């Protein structure tokens, strides 16, 4: 019930927040689709110099309302030459490789191996400069005898941010919690500090999608003299906002 109320509150807030933008068509015509995708059929065409209102955007498609009240989805490529109500050009450029190098936020989902255990990783990063970014990662590794929760923060240097492929290097530290899995006997969970260095590469696929793969060399700060090192590799997909 509480979840439903939260959903309803968010829905109402979002509905009230939308402000339509009026533009004039400068392409020969634009095609209005019934849904935000190439696969949805075209049901109406608006011609040059007609005015439309842009209501919202979803994955490079714009929900527009023409002057007779019809609503439909138009691809970004057809709206690239539209003008605003005061005659100035408007920019509706979608995600590109160029935008990737200037984007601020990135998220990624990765799977891999953490010292023999299966690893799930979710991370978000914020670009400090074109080359440098700060990243927060939450890892969950599941082995036969224990599971590990590892939260890290790092600084990543991307060597060629404007290129399709770019290697990167990172250095960071975090906290690791080891939870032993024993059904009969409950062993004690314990927490340790971790530092790591990592190298990886990212490859821009298309739209907002990026493929990523990386290797980490973790150093576990134990209280004993025993040196503990954990190797970790992971691969997955990232996307930028």
């Amino acid at each position, binding site marked *: 019930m509480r979840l439903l109320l939260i959903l309803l509150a968010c829905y109402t807030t*979002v509905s009230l927040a*939308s402000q339509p933008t009026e533009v004039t068509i400068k392409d020969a015509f634009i095609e209005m689709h019934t849904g935000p*995708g190439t*696969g949805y*059929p075209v049901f109406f065409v608006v011609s040059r110099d007609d005015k439309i209102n*842009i*209501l919202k*955007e979803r994955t490079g498609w714009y929900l527009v309302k023409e002057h007779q009240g019809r609503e439909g989805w138009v691809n970004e490529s057809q709206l690239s030459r539209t003008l605003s109500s005061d005659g100035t050009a408007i920019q509706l450029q979608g995600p590109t490789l160029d935008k990737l190098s200037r984007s601020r936020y990135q998220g990624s989902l990765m799977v891999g191996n953490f010292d023999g255990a299966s690893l799930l990783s979710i991370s978000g990063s914020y670009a400090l400069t074109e080359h440098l970014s700060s990243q927060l990662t939450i890892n969950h590794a599941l082995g036969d005898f224990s599971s590990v929760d590892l939260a890290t923060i790092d600084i990543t240097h991307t060597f060629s941010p404007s290129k399709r492929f770019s290697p990167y290097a990172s250095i960071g530290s975090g906290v690791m919690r080891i939870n032993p899995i024993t059904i009969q006997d409950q062993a004690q969970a314990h927490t340790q500090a971790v530092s790591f260095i990592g190298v990886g590469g990212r490859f821009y696929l298309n*739209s907002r999608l990026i493929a990523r793969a990386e290797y980490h060399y973790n150093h576990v700060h134990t209280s004993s003299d025993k040196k503990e090192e954990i190797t970790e590799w992971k691969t997955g997909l990232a996307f930028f906002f």
Partner: protein
Amino acid sequence: MENRLSLFLLISLLAMLNSGCALLGNHKATEATPVNRPIVTGSSSPIGADVMQPVIEPKVERRTIKTPKIDSDNIELGAYGGIINIEDFGSHPVIGARLAYHISESFFVEGSYGQTSAGQSNVETLFNIQLLTESQRKYRNYALSLGWNALPGEVFIGENRTYNTALYFVLGAGATHFGGDKRFTMNGGFGYRLLLNNQLATHLDVRDSLYDTSLLGERKVVNNIETSVGLTFFF
């Protein structure tokens, strides 16, 4: 001879007058002549300073480009409920939540979480024993998946109602917490999304979670199939 001399003098006079006028009216002549040539003049003369100015004033108008603020509806959040079959432990109602980010018209990433409480296994029922405690019967699963909108389309209900739909496939990985154990879990399945309007959508999903466990002694891969309906909204 005299005529020739008169003609020569007249031409010379005209030439002198012409050059004199040119000097006097230098400012206007410069404006009319679009050649930026150096002219030697006295330092106090304003003529040289005028000549050094650009002949043609460039009127470059910077093109104004606006980036309008348009709402982006790429995030989808919602809840679901259904039935999950936990291998060896029977079928039970499951509830959960899903959060998806639509990367492009074809792909989305999704995080999902579901939980239920498992019943007794066949072994427990048959021999009237308890293998798990009540807290260990709590089944929790989370998954991070990549989805592909494979078949976008429309459904027609009656003559006047049309709804956008999409059949999608998901594949991902996650974890299952069950029986005091946490297992790495692969998940996959398909779903059918029907958009009630541009923001609200209903889902019908079938997911399979695979993981290996030795909960009942023998180590094996289990398949937990979940069928659910859900309601989500885009924001």
